[in-house]
């Protein structure tokens, strides 16, 4: 259960909550007793001052009961908030170690909903459940002890009332259960469609696909509505049933009481039954109320339970790639080696890389070229340990990448992904990102921007390094985003730079300038570059030609032009299209 995530302090608060509620119930049940005392005093011929003395005691009782209730509410709210805070933190700490394989298992949208909405659901439920689950049994049992002396007919009526409630709630929960389970997935869908529409609005509009988007959304929304309607149509019976049962139970107790009194012999017996009847009806309703508090809670529980399950799925999830323990130490050379590496995607089982072996020596440039789908990007993600090879070994600085501690391994790379990732913030916070955030000086940032040919446009921006950047870099052009992304890699001064098709949005002139300044000013670094254009990689020390996951050629540009038909084909097709 999710409750195991409550820490010690929270359990102490729960204990305090129990104490407060016990006091509160005691005080609440004490009030009618004073009323009895007053009645007895009146019959014994009492005075005004005696009545008012009881009055003061009752008022103090009521006030203390309020204080106790507030105390209990305070504790319950605190426990709920603490639990959700801890859950959110645990979730983040697990998700932060996710690689694409793990993210793919859940989907990003679902991870977002789980850390936000699902936690809120659980928090509300726990705060509610805490007070109800403590208060109801105390109240119910206490009231029951006062009933126990009455006639069995009354007890039977009360039991029948409870049975009606249990059966109806049980039935409704049973039939709606599958529909409750469907809610989170449908909500994920709604989120997904909204997110897609908003983020891809240009494509949607360019193709006049607004109506298509709206239709898809409408269908999902319809599904959610029908699913919900199924639940609400049935659940809407519960409040009237609860009210009806307590109404009819009161009536039944009075009616049974009347019959009992009619049958009874002797005025004393009749008077006893009469007072029993009034007492019984009061306490029976109290038992029923306690009972209904619990059933109301149960009624709201399916959704919270689903949320709690979704949270626990992450908390108990074993990440696909366990972390290693080796620190990088001093031997940071920037050497990357593949030894007979094959890889198939865990989900599909399709082989993407087959028996890849090569070595990128310190300060050298290795380029990987090949048609789309040939496995180029996958090769890079094996170096950063986003995936693990199915067989063979990937070594960095002479060690299997699996042995390194994640942060230590990361620190070896400057990584430029295919699609630029830009964060909301400033130019500075995007370039001096992550572990460089506190280390890089303004000069370092400017130098990185300069190498990435980005200093010109940044200096023209309002605020320079402090110029505001929107989430996803929406206020930058594609080429600008890519250059910021390159500057980020450069700024890190890592010994190996991994560039995944990272010149694609640059014009040829800028592409060339970036490559030249990288070569001249990022000395000693090893470059592993994935590219589409032969022009971008002609001067690499080693070029690997990939085709359907196999290396079909390796060597320098000149050697490959000579000996690798596929490479020549790619090169020629690009030359004739007028690259130069």
């Amino acid at each position, binding site marked *: 259960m999710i409750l195991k995530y409550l820490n010690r302090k929270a359990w102490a608060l729960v204990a305090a909550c129990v104490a407060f509620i016990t006091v509160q119930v005691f005080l609440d049940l004490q009030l009618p007793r004073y009323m009895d005392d007053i009645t007895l005093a009146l019959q014994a011929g009492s005075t005004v001052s005696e009545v008012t003395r009881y*009055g003061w005691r009752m008022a103090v009782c009521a006030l203390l009961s309020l204080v106790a209730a507030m105390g209990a509410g305070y504790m319950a709210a605190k426990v709920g908030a603490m639990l959700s805070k801890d859950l959110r933190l645990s979730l983040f700490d697990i998700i932060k170690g996710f690689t694409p394989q793990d993210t793919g298992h859940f989907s990003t949208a679902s991870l977002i909903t789980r850390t*936000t909405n699902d936690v809120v659901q659980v928090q509300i439920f726990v705060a509610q459940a805490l007070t109800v689950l403590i208060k109801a049994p105390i109240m119910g049992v206490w009231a029951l002890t006062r009933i126990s002396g009455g006639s069995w007919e009354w007890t039977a009526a009360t039991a029948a009332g409870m049975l009606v409630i249990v059966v109806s709630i049980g039935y409704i929960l049973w039939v709606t259960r599958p529909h409750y389970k469907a809610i989170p997935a449908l*909500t994920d869908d709604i989120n997904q469609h909204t997110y897609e*529409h908003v*983020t891809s609005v240009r494509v949607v509009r360019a193709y006049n696909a607004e109506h298509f988007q709206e239709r898809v959304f409408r269908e999902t929304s319809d599904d959610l509505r029908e699913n919900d309607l199924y639940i609400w149509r049935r659940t*809407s019976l519960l409040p*009237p049933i609860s009210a009806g049962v307590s109404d*009819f139970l009161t009536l039944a107790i009075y009616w049974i009481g009347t019959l009992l009194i009619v049958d009874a012999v002797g005025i004393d017996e009749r008077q006893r039954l009469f007072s029993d009847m009034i007492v019984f009806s009061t306490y029976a309703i109290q038992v029923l109320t306690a009972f209904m508090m619990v059933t109301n809670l149960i009624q709201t529980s399916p959704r919270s339970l689903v949320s709690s399950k979704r949270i626990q799925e992450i908390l108990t999830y074993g990440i696909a790639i366990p972390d290693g323990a080796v620190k990088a130490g001093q031997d940071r050379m920037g050497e990357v080696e593949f030894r007979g590496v094959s890889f198939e995607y865990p989900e599909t089982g399709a082989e993407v890389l087959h028996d890849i072996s090569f070595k990128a020596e310190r300060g050298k440039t290795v380029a990987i070229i090949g048609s789309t789908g040939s496995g180029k990007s996958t090769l890079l993600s094996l170096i950063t340990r986003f995936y693990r090879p199915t067989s063979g070994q990937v070594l960095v600085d002479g060690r299997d990448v699996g042995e390194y501690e994640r942060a230590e391994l990361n620190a070896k790379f400057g990584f430029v992904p295919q699609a630029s990732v830009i964060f909301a913030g400033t130019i500075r916070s995007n370039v001096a990102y992550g572990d460089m955030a506190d280390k890089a000086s303004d000069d370092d940032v400017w130098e990185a921007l300069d190498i990435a040919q980005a200093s010109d446009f940044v200096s023209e921006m309002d605020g320079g390094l402090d110029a505001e950047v929107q989430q996803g870099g929406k206020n930058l052009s594609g080429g600008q985003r890519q250059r910021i992304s390159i500057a980020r890699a450069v700024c890190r001064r890592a010994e190996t730079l991994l560039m995944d098709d990272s010149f694609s949005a640059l014009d040829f002139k800028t592409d060339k300038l970036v490559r030249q300044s990288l070569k001249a000013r990022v000395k000693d670094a090893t470059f592993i570059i994935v590219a589409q254009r032969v022009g971008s990689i002609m001067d690499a020390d080693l070029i690997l030609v990939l085709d359907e996951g196999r290396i079909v050629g390796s060597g320098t540009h000149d050697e490959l032009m000579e000996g690798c038909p596929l490479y020549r084909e790619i090169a020629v097709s690009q030359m004739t299209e007028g690259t130069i």
Partner: protein
Amino acid sequence: MTVNPAIPRWSQGEKSKNMGPTLLRLLHCFGKYRWYIYIGSVLTLFNSILTVLGPNYLSQMTNLVADGISEGTGIDLALATHLALCLAAIYAVAFLCEAAGTRLAWVAEEINGDALRKMLSEKISRISVGTLDSMRPGDIMSRFANDTDNIRSKGADCFTNMASAVSMFAGCIVMMFLTDWRLAVITLIPNLLGFLGIRMMIRWSQKYYRAQSKDLGRMNNLVSEVFDGLNVVSVYNGVDAARKSYVEINDSLYVSAFRSRFVGGLMPQLTGFVNNIGYVLVCIAGALFILEGTATYGTIVAFIIFAKLLNHPLTRIANALANVQMVAVSCERVFEFLDTPEMEDESGKADAPKDVKGRVDIEDVSFSYVPGTEILHGLSLSAAPGQKVAIVGPTGAGKTTIANLLLRFYDADSGRISIDGMDITEIRREEVRRLFSVVLQEAWMLRGTIRENITLGN
């Protein structure tokens, strides 16, 4: 986390509330299902009236039995049976009224929630690309899912529950005054004072609820950014910094969630207290009246029941008022999105000409995304039908901007763009776009099949 000035003010959770008009507008959104709400309210009103009549029959039965015992005359069983059957009938009708009323209200709420979602979805298509870019996807998503869900699940409290509680309250007052006006006044005083206290507390809690919404929105934005770019965040060891922002928001959320929950939870406690005080006052005043000889035990018993009955609507009203303000906050967020300025209505504009040859003329066009930073300065160019025109330039030169203008994602500040001599701002947007096939810089994929991605519904 840096505060992004491009976030619209409405997502910062600062705004004065305008609850009445907002709820009226919500009611308006129900469309024809408004009648479900009206009928549901009337049915629950019947239910309240019948419920208030109940104690009267019960006390008649009690009196019948009590008198029978004390006077030793025996009990008129036929009359007792008659009273019990009447009461059973009343309770049965009350049950049916509540069952039907609740169902109608809940169904209407669900259908309205769905309608709101669809209105929001259709709204996206009517907002300009520039305006959409200035909003955060996480925030928009939260309006689509959380806010509509909030309105759906708590909306009933605004209308039907409120109607039934208020009518029950009124019914109790009438019955009380009919029984004994002195005790009625004494019972009402703590209830009215309690009601004022609750009103104050609601105003207090509203502040915390808004703080909580705001923190949740910030959390959504941060989490979506970090999880979306997790590869880069991870490789650059940016996780620690992200975690720091996360912890900061999480702490702030802890405080706001705790406060809103605590203050919100105080209201039922307060009504419980009011109820207890009412009980105490009835007991004391009743006892004193008995000493005076101006009241009977029967009256006190009746008032003890009334004091209990009053608690029910008061708790309901307190809960409803607490929920109403949450609904109002959510409504405002939904309406704010719905009220985002739209692109100019173009239904009166022309279709694209039938036989388009494909001559594109750009004449002296200037454009800036942000006033003061002009991207295109008096650009002119022409493309004749069948011609292949390439636009070359360094990144940031404005190449994409030209495509943005041609597709009318934005309109030029000055100058004229025409196709076959027809100004594109004179043609409806979707008609202009129909004339183009575009391959955009970034490859976007929608979740779905390859066919759906290629046809995009056309």
